[in-house]
């Protein structure tokens, strides 16, 4: 029997194997609970160290594009190790962007002001109806393995961009990468090489990050052997919550109205004095700045320069410094959403689109975790402790 002190800093969430049943610490929000064993990803919540298939994310960021990293996650083969497999994978994931006409029309019939995450859920659901019929293998092994779900979701987000802008839906060129296609839909023009690199970076950094609520939701749904599209609808439902991906949208809602660093400084002071929340700060588990912030801050700075929006970056930087000064002593630090959201916005995404864009990146890791688990996954079914009324009789006249 394994006994793990999971909430002590001495435990780094790596092991040669787990002997079930396991005894662990159990904290609020199920912190410390071992809910999965995986070879896909390693996250140590006490250091923020993150690796995909044993490759440190630092060494992937800015060097590998999203498709390479998605292939690494799903197939376990690093860039350079399997060039033919990677080429085939690129072809598959890119070609899965062709959407049925009915689905485009379903999105087109929705009010363009509907929150994009809700439109995306409806679109994913409709795509699933076309992709898997009653006669198909509903486990969706192929849809996960070939990451068709990622290509389809990217295409849906593009269609939603066009619908919001009132422009004609257009399909991505079959040869262009997922990042190129998405940027073209966001900005209605061909992207620059720097923009493509930045979006790839964002997706690489958001591809997997432990069992956060959207990922854990997907694991639970997968354990019931649901089809991938039900699974994604469930994951998207969690992603938009204000305490997860929804916070990225709030970051922009807070930053964009601030006109200059002076206003930013005053806003932070006022918000904190009123007991308000600075979005992009704080994490339910970590008591340190997210290590991914460093590269995102740098990228946001250079993208802001390139797009003539230095003022926005200065505002963000001011908020970061002021909020860190006030919050770090309480153990509250900057998280990935802060500069992540800013960079998505600099690449052309309006605030409500940001959770959808995060979802595309995250789905690569989720797909890898789900696919890995499908073989032997056990239904998630914890217990609760009853603390309600003692047994009572029901009399049919309605009194008790």
């Amino acid at each position, binding site marked *: *029997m394994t006994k793990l002190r999971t909430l002590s800093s001495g435990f780094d*969430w*790596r*092991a040669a194997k*787990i002997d*079930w*049943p396991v005894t662990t610490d*159990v*904290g*609020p*929000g*199920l912190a410390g*609970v071992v*809910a*999965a*064993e995986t070879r896909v*990803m*390693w*996250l140590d*919540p006490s250091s923020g160290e993150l690796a995909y298939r044993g490759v440190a994310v630092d060494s992937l960021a800015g060097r590998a594009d999203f498709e390479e990293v998605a292939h690494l996650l799903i197939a376990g083969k690093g860039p350079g190790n399997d060039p033919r497999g990677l080429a085939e994978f690129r072809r598959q994931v890119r070609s899965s962007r062709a959407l049925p006409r*009915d689905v485009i029309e*379903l999105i087109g019939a929705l009010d363009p002001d509907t929150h994009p995450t*809700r439109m995306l859920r*409806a679109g*994913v659901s*409709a795509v*699933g*109806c*076309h992709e898997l*019929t*009653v006669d198909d293998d509903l486990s969706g092994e192929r849809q996960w393995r070939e990451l068709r779900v990622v290509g389809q979701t990217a295409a849906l987000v593009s269609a939603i961009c066009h619908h919001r802008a009132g422009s004609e839906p257009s399909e991505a060129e079959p040869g262009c990468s997922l990042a190129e296609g998405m940027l073209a839909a966001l900005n209605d023009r061909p992207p620059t090489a720097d923009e493509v690199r930045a979006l790839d970076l964002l997706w690489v950094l958001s591809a997997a990050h*432990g*069992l956060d*609520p959207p990922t*854990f*939701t997907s694991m*639970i749904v997968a354990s*019931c*052997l*649901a*089809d991938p*599209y*039900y699974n994604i609808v*469930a994951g998207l*439902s*969690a992603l*938009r*919550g204000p*305490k997860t991906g*929804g916070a990225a949208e709030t970051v922009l809602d807070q930053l964009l109205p601030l006109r200059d660093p002076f206003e930013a400084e005053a806003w932070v002071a006022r918000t904190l004095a009123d007991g308000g929340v600075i979005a992009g700060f704080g994490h339910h588990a970590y008591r340190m700045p997210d290590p991914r912030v460093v590269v995102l801050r740098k990228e946001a700075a250079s993208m802001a320069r390139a797009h003539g929006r230095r003022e926005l970056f200065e505002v963000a930087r001011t908020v970061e410094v002021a909020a860190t000064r006030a919050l770090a002593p309480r153990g509250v630090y900057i998280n990935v959403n802060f500069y992540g959201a800013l960079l998505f916005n600099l690449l052309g995404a309006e605030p409500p689109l940001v959770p959808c864009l995060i979802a595309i990146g995250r789905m690569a890791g989720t797909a890898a975790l789900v696919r890995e688990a499908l073989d032997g996954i*056990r239904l998630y*079914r*914890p*217990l*609760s*402790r*009853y603390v309600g*009324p003692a*047994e009572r009789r*029901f009399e049919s006249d309605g009194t008790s």
Partner: protein
Amino acid sequence: MIGSSPIIAEQRYGRGLEDLVAGDTAISEIDGRAGRLLYRGYPIEDLVGRVSFEETAYLVLFGEMPDDSQLENWSAELERWRDPPQAALDALRSVPRNAHPLAQFRTMMTVAACHIPEPENTELDAQWRRPARILSWTAALAARAIRHLEGADLVPPRDDLGYAANFLHQATGRTSSTEETTAFEASLVVQAEHGLHAAAFAALVVISTGADLGSAVLAGMGALSGARHGGANQLAFEMLEQLNGPGTARQWAREALARRLRFPGFGHRVYKCPDPRVRALEPYAEALLDANGDGRLWNTYLALREEIEGALGAKGIFANVDSITGLIYHPIGLPVSAFPIPFCLAIQTGWMAHCLEYLPDGKVIAPGAVYIDPTA
């Protein structure tokens, strides 16, 4: 209540969080050794056949049996939401006919969710409105999905019918008999809540992120749609239907037992004894099948259950609720592929109750994953 209520700080549990006590709840008590299920302190045997689904839902959601005026208001609120957005009903035109009924249902729900006002206002009645809207919209959308399978249009709701009878009316396009309605209602009552099963747990993870109740329910539906969860009553019925009478059932069961096959509708993570929901529903199923001249199917079920429980009961494997509900839904005239739908309609009540109970705590649910290090 997973968030802030006292948590047992060190626990032993298995894969799938088996035996982990995730938190406290005042909604239902499940005794897996004695085979008992109580909603807010009331044993389900006391409720089934005596209260409506509306009363059960009120009890599960809000903690007490409604008095007359509370029940009147709650029923009126449920009735108010019987017409889902037209766009959601129309969404079926955009999906192929051979998509799974649950996937069609999902598409309508995701479109309906686009029509829930945002941000949801905080008026006093919102606490009632949100669950009532979800319960009633989903019933109408489910009925639409079932009618669509038969190539028919949805018939309008009827003001004089309660939740269960109106659903049957809309799903079958005809007026059901009292016996059918009573049996169907009983199936909703005993399936209205069942602790932190996978779907309820998924809903709770979603609500813990601050997402809305509709999103939590969609996640629950996702879990429930899986073959291992809500889909099990369909598989259990299909197994039964292929067996031609009690004799064949016994023989097939013995062979299957010898080959150590698993039987859909048998065995439960929590109950290691007869499932109280099965015992509560059996009389209704028997009566309906008898009335339909389908006593043979009933006897086939009994034979199969006796064989399997006789062989595996000592290991704690008994018929679970999924083995019996099909024997109510089939004589009522629901298509087999739609069997998971009534389960969805009933059990979402419990998910919403858990979500409403959880909300004040608010801690994000995020357990960990151990990296199995090939180099370690």
